[in-house]
Every structure is written in C-alpha cells, then in structure tokens.
C-alpha cells in the first residue's frame, strides 16, 4: 500500500555504487593488475555516476531533503533536460557503464551494485517517476506583518485614524474623539 518512491532508493544505491566502482577502479589501476584498462574506465565511470547522482530529486509528495552543496550539481544536471529527467535513460546509462567493470575482480562489486541500481531505476521509470530539481524557494516576504508586529498608530485610547476623517460628518462618533490633543508635558 502507499506510493513508494523507488527513485529515492535507487539514487542512494547508485551514489554508493559509484563510490564503490571508483574505489575498485583506483585499486585496480594502482595495483597494475591485468586488465587495468577496465579499472581506469571504472574510475572515470565512477566519477561520472557520483556527479550524476549527487543531486537528489524533489519528492512528489512530502519534504525533500537536499544534500549539502547540491545546488550547483542540480543546475548542471537540470541543463541536460530530458536526458537526465527520464529514468529510463538513466537506467540504461547505468547499465551500460557497469558492464566493463565485470571483466576485472577489483571492479566487479561496483558492477553488480550499479546493475542493481539500474534495475531499481527501471522500476521507478515504469512507475512513471521522473527527476525534478530542488530549487530554492522564492523569498516570500509577507508585506502585511500582522498586527502583532506593526506598532500602534495611535496612543490609547484614541480612535483609529479613519475616525478623524469622519469627525465633521459623524457627530455621534465624535464622542470617541478627544477634544484636546494630548501632548507630552513640556
């Protein structure tokens, strides 16, 4: 029951997988194992996946929590338009990136984890989810700050300002008006 947002989970997984892919690639290149070219590719792919997955999407319902400093990544990812908005494309990209990692031991874990993230993104895409950037809310400063904050215009027990205009017309209302202006003692 309930709408599960698969994309959020897929995003967490993909970010973690990207890091694992990157680490495995670094180990593979540093150790100069056989097939280290695959490891070098894994390093590049890992960095790319991390950059792509770092900005969190806006949730369809509920509050979205940003990752620290994700605004610039969000803007960059948003600029690719439908390529990054659509989760089918993302699932395909992740699946394609993970395949070369399967040829080397150091990167095989990253490959499998990315593969799982790709599957979850596919599920999210089938359910019709898409990526929305979290943009900062426009500053809505309320002009009318409420009677609590605006200081009173008249000292008590004077009538409100519009009563002054009616002084001449409404003699009945004049009962509320002070005959003498109250000033401070000089």
């Amino acid at each position, binding site marked *: *029951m*309930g*709408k*599960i*947002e*698969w994309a*959020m*989970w897929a995003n*967490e*997984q993909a970010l*973690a*997988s990207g890091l*694992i892919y990157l680490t495995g690639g670094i*180990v593979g290149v540093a*150790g100069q*194992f*056989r*097939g280290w070219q695959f490891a070098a590719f894994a390093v590049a792919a890992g960095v790319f996946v991390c950059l792509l997955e770092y900005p*969190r999407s806006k*949730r369809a319902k*509920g509050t979205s*929590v940003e990752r620290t400093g994700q605004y610039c990544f969000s803007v960059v990812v948003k600029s690719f338009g439908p390529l990054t908005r659509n989760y089918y494309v993302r699932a395909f990209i992740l699946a394609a990136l993970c395949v070369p990692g399967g*040829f*080397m*031991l*150091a990167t095989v*874990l990253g490959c*499998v*984890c990315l593969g*799982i993230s790709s599957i979850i993104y596919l599920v999210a895409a089938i359910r019709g989810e898409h990526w929305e950037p979290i943009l900062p809310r426009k500053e809505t400063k309320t002009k009318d700050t*409420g009677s*609590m904050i605006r200081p009173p215009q008249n000292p008590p027990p004077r009538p409100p300002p519009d009563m002054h205009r009616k002084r001449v017309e409404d003699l009945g209302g004049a009962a509320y008006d002070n005959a003498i202006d109250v000033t401070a003692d000089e």
Partner: protein
Amino acid sequence: MVVVSVRSWVANEGGKHFVLMLWLGANIWLFMKTFLLYSTGKQYHYLYKMLGLGLCISRASASVLNLNCSLVLLPMCRSLLTFVRGTHTVSSRKTRRLLDKSKTFHVACGVAICIFSVVHVSAHLVNVVNFSMSYSDDFPALNLARYRGEVRPMYSHIYMLFPGVTGVLLVLILFLMFTSSSYCVRVSNYEIFWYTHNLFIVFYIILMVHMVGGALKYQTNLEAHPPGCLRANQSSTEQHGEELGQNEDEERRCREEAHFQPHCPQTWLWVSGPLCLYCAERLYRYIRSSNPVTIVTVIRHPCDVIELRMLKKNFKARPGQYIVLNCPGVSSFENHPFTLTTCPTEIKATFGVHLRVVGDWTERFTQLLLPESRLDMEILPMVQQRRYPNLYVDGPFGSPSEEVFNYDVSLCVAGGIGVTPFACVLHALLDGWTGFRLQRLYFVWVCRELQSFYWFAELLCAVHHKLWQENRPDYFNLKLYVSQPDSLQCMSEERYRPLTSRLLVGRPKWKLLFDEIAKTNKHKKVGVFCCGPKGISSTLHRLCNSARSSGTTFEFNKESFS
C-alpha cells in the same frame, strides 16, 4: 553562548560515552589479539611467510566482524529491553537511560560491520594476489593458486571457492541493507527499509557457512614439525645415518612433513546466541499480537487528530510506552508506532492512542473508522454501530518517557502531537499521584494552533483542579505556548480558565525557563523529557549540558519518533 559544564556533561553524556569506549576497546583488543596470533603464532608460520600482512588484517577484521555481527542484534530485541526497563530491581536509572540509546548502538555496530567488511574484502584480494606471487613449492598443500604468477581475473578460483561465492553474496546483501537504511529513505519509504533489513536472516545463514572449505590453513603437527625446521632437515638428510650429537639440531629436526588443515567455521559460536534470541523475540511478538483488539470508541479531535479507544485481553502497559498498530484492511504489512495516551488500569480496561492524520496510511485508516462526510472538526464523540476494521496491536514497548516518575522534579516539553506520552503520565497522576517519587512536574506544551490544546484540555484542567484540591498547588506547573500568532482565537470556555491564564503567545524562552526551574529546585536532579521537533530537542540538550550555578543538574531524555 552557553558554557558546557563538566558536571552537567558527565551527568548527561557520561554513560553513553563510557559504553562507547568499552565497545571501541573491545573491538581494538580483539583486532590486535587476532593480528598478533596470525603474525606470531607458530601454526601460521608458513602461511604468514606466504601471505604477509594481508593474512593478519583479513583474519583480524573477520574476528571484529564476528563480534559486531553478534552485538548488532541485541539492541533490536525490543520486548527484552522493555522487560529490563520495567524491572527496577535489575537496573538502575542510569542503566535504563542507556537503554534509550539502543538504536544508536545498533547503528554504530552496523557501520562497523560495513567498514570492516571493506577492510576484510580488500585484505583477501591482496591475499589472492600473494597466493600466486609467493607460490610455495615446499608446501603444495598450502597453495591456492595453481601455479606461480597466475594473476588473472581469478574468476575461476574465487567463484569456485565456497567462501568466495558466499563472500560476494554477503557483501551484496550488506550493500542493499546499508543503502536503504539512510535517513531519507527511512523517512520517505519506510517499507523499503523494513523489507531489505529483513534480509538479515539470509545474511546470517550465509555468514555461518562462509568459512567452509576455506583457503587459509593452519599447521596441525607443531611438535613433530616445529616451524622453521625444514632447512635443518634438508641439511641433515645429507648426513643421514651419521651420528649428529648436536642438541640444537635435535630440537630443530623435523620428524615429519608439515600437515595443514583448514579452519572450521567459528562464526556460529558468536552469532547463534543473539540470533536465536532475536528470532525468539520476533516469534513472541508475533504470537502476542495475533489476537485482534476490539475498538470501543473513535473520537475526532480538531487539527486532524483521531482518538482511538481499544480493548485487549491481558494487555498491560505503563505510562509512556508505545504500541505498534497493524490494520490488514489498510495494508497487510505496514506497522505504525503510536504512543499510548491512556493505559489500562484496574478501574478501566480500555487503552487509547491519539493519531494525527499525516500520511496515506493514517488517512485510509481514518476513512475506515469514521464516515467520510463529516469533515468539520468536532469534539463530540461519535459512537456508532458500525463494523470497525480488524486491528492488531504489538507491544507495549518501552520508551524514555517512562522515567518521568522516577525523578524528584521533571520537566516535560511537548511539541504538537508529541504530547501523547505525557498525556498518559497525566492520566496516571490523576488516578493517584501520591505513590510516585515525583514531587514536581513542569509541563510545557508548544503548539502551532490554539485548537490543538483541545485534545487534552479536559485532562489538564482535571489534573490542575485535583492537585489544588489536595493542597499541592506547586506540583503541577503548566505553560502553554502558541507559536504562530496569526488568526488568534481564544479559549472562551469558562471551565478552561486554568489554561487560558497560562497561555502565552510566541516561542518559549528556554534559557529563562531553565534558570527559573534551577532557582526553585536547588541541588536537585531534574529529568528533562522532550518529545517534539529537532530544533527544540537540540536546544534543550545544549541547555542541559550547560553550566548551572545553583547546583541543579538537568538530565536529558529524548523520545524519538522513528
């Protein structure tokens, strides 16, 4: 800026940090002990020469993993912890305060498992390389590689070896569990977290057979073949038949070839106890929640709150505890926790919860309980002859708010619907306040809207009047705050006069409140209980740790929702 006082900090944080130090110390000790065993132990002499540091690190991290995998289950045995919390003879107040942090301990063990898994896997990868680089011609039984320099992608080796296959599966499951337990996934889609976390049973089963058919072998015949004696044997075979007559050679002569044997799996020794305990706990909770409850009344309150009164046989609860509701009519697998607002007593056997309609489960549940047409806010109870849905209750489970009665002075701070644990406390006071250790209760309730106070207006006035009648006017000190001043209404009912005279507009000034409480309760320990948003609880936590000139100590207890 508030200055942190050593005494307040120790009173509040000392216990937690002590347990943390103990746990870290146990991990470090275990790591070093296993490391030294493999680097200096005689039975691993040849293996160590072949593999080097990778052997020691992988085995040391494995033993730390064993420890943490067994400890991680214990804080999740909620019924057991509730029982320990309830028996005041077994545990002191300090121990019970430590139980509040059981989820934090679980997370700490989980993080340690992830970190050491990474260390363990890396060390084993290095071992694989070393097995082929240092292929041993002297001891062919010890080898894993088929020939020297076999540094290939190694699939045929790793994945045909049982520990390799199980290791990859374990890491995969751990990865799934770890990524779905981040804060935002738990908050947004709790089901994903719950279902992936229940893969733990697969994890443990695989973990227990992980070492079968292992690649690391130890030497079994140490007396007959002291390590390092091979050279002496080789040199002495040339003189075979001659009398040697040298004592050193006698000691270092090998009588036979070195025999090697792989380890038996040891993880089950560590893990089976907590695993059985946890499975027993889950079974007990399942059986206990299997008989459905009878819904007695459903009352609609203002600001989207529904009160539910229920009856269940043999249900006993203490004030401050919470239950978990499961309604198959709404969703078969979702379980939602709610704090009890009334506990069953000898006089009245019903118990109740207040639930705020926030997500889709609560919305659907409310639709099943009440007719949809009446959407206006009413306080009148609507008792109707209708078929209520089947409801199952699991619990009750303990929470920090049970300790309110065990301090001389308590300060309860509630934010919005967070007042529910304290409502139960107030009901208990209404039934009989003389039996508790509590001598003074400060109650601060902050709400966004004035209407919210109607949830418990009757209860607050009843407690106030009772204590005034019984000549204890200083027992119950109430302060109500409305944080959003727009569209201010007032409580015009005469019977709620004690509330309106204690109602303040705006956010509370916590420092002044603490100073006032400290001045009137010198040299006492004040229990601070907070159930509300993060902002309030972190401010209160900071204030509890700060310096106090009047000798009052504030002990902070926080109720958490997730």
